[in-house]
């Protein structure tokens, strides 16, 4: 569904992403892991069309994504790391605006709003200003805004930062439901246990390059641990990326 081919992006002398390639299939959740500054967000930004790659292609259903107004962008939903919501407006008005950006209007938009809010459990708070929401509710609404136009591909950039266990669990259940509906999900996070629970495949990126692309079991098999049991993902991650502190 989503295929990344040889993406490269640099900012001045810093090469943020260098020859990154991977794919995400329908009904699959791919975890994108990497230390701070590894190039995860830049990669997601290039897929979402926020940053123009210097080289490489983003393919949606086999077709190259080209330009700001490419209709294929409609197949992508972005859930940014920031709570990208208008606090001053009610949840319904936020979703109405974001839906209209994808050409939704009238009854179709109403249905989309109702469906998205239902999924994230905020249907009864549609008229409340976002500023009155808790952190967890804002995270769920942030997810709903990315789902509104029913995209085939969902890009989730650290979608559970700063939320309580209940909201996090609710988000996980939402993602599992979306996966079961055939959505392709790309999920970046620093929380290893989230990837262990959700991901079908894991791409590890460091210094702008893909250093591993495998299933959890495949990655665990790369690292031998004392006692013979499987290594934790964190052990695998630290083995692959090293223990030196990053900026």
């Amino acid at each position: 569904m989503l295929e990344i081919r040889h993406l490269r992006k640099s900012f001045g002398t810093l090469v943020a992403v260098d020859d990154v390639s991977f794919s995400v299939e329908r009904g699959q959740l791919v975890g994108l892991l990497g230390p701070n500054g590894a190039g995860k967000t830049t990669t997601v930004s290039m897929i979402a069309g926020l940053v123009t790659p210097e080289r490489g292609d983003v393919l949606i259903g086999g077709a190259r994504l080209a330009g700001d107004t490419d209709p294929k962008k409609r197949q992508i939903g972005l859930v940014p790391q920031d709570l990208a919501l208008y606090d001053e407006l009610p949840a319904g008005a936020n979703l109405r605006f974001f839906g209209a950006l994808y050409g939704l209007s009238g009854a179709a938009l109403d249905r989309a709003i109702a469906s998205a809010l239902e999924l994230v459990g905020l249907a009864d708070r549609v008229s409340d200003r976002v500023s009155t929401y808790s952190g967890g509710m804002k995270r769920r609404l942030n997810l709903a805004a990315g789902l509104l136009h029913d995209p085939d591909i969902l890009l989730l950039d650290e979608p559970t930062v700063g939320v309580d266990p209940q909201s996090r669990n609710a988000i996980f259940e939402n993602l599992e439901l979306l996966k079961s509906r055939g959505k392709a999900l790309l999920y970046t996070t620093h929380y290893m246990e989230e990837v262990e629970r959700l991901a079908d495949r894991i791409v590890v990126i460091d210094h702008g390059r893909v250093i591993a692309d495998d299933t959890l079991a495949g990655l665990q098999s790369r690292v031998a641990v004392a006692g013979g049991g499987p290594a934790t993902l964190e052990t695998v991650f630290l083995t692959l990326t090293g223990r030196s502190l990053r900026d």
Partner: protein
Amino acid sequence: MTTLIPLLALVRKDLRLFFSDRRSVIVSFVVPIAIASFFGSIFSGTNNREPARIAVAIVDHDSSAISTGIVAAAGADKNFRLTSPAEAEARDAVKRGRASVAVIIPAGFGAAAGNAFFGNGDKPPLDLVYDPSRAMEVAMVRGILTQHVMEAVSREMFGGEQGRKMVAETLPQIAASSMPADEKRALADMLASVQKFYSQQPPVAGEATRRGITMPYTVREEAMTAGSNIAYNGYAHSFGGMAIQFLLFAMANAGIEMLLERQRGLWKRLRSAPVSRVTLLAGKGVSGTAISLMILLVSFAFAIIVFGVRIHGSVAGFFSVAIACAMMASAFGLLVAAIGGTPATARGVTTLAVLMMVMLGGAWVPTFIFPAWLQQFTMIVPVRWAVDGLDAMTWRGIGISGAVVPTLVLLGFTVVFGTIAIACFKWEEA
């Protein structure tokens, strides 16, 4: 997908955000009306009311016919609010700002001024003690006082006791002088004629019946407004100026809001949607223009209803200037968003920029009080054209021709601001 749905959504969202912020609404609509009402009451001109009188303290140490004449004339002058305290009190009044000027007439002033009138005596000083912060009032007092002193001195010298005495004393001095005989005879004949004139006119008790040298003309003033029966309405200028100031502030704030939207990650969502860059900026431009136009029109609507401001020129011209002004302000907001850096930096810089523009553009005070070079400089300030255009369409009563140049210039500024904004806008959202 049609671009109209996202465009309308962008505009609707910005309008909704603007009106959801009560502080923005008050600052944009109520504050300019309040300030414009205040400035309008000050600059409404003399047609509507009596001008404020200048506080003048006068001290007469002379008590001669001339000095009492000066005091009486100054007391009757409608430009002065005259008091006659002791000298120490007069000086204290000026020092404390209760009087703009203290006029001190020294002893012997009348006699000396009479002698100096015909050029054969030293000119006596008339002391003016003034408040240096009120230089314009001092200049007015000096001019008005000149008239009163000349009138009092000439009246006394051409018909008063002092004049008679001076002629009587001068005739023997001429006879004894060494001047040429023909000049001596001519001068003696002239003074003898004056003496004869005096002898035929006995001294008069009522000074008002005698007149000295007076201004040999009167001034007929005509305020060049929209028509002969239409008085200048200072509120038209003040409401135009204040509305422009606050719509610029509103648009600068809109630009800063765009920077905040970027900080909050909202532009990532906007940019990830299949919406063109033109549509995104056009949405901001249209909403900004709509808000600016509302601020301008609401301000003028208030001025029309409450203060009787009228569009004496062309209504179409008024709207063309108003729309062009709103577009210029909206493009200014985009410029702030494009080159503003961080919201905090942009806030400081744009506040200064807006204040400079409105000050130089004549939104606070008319530009004619500026030095000539500064008046020329203000031609590059868009506010100047907006203010001039709105003045032309309101109290000046100029037809559509008066709106053409301001409208075109404002549209030119819109293009310049917009082009720089598009060129500098940061589109990548890493």
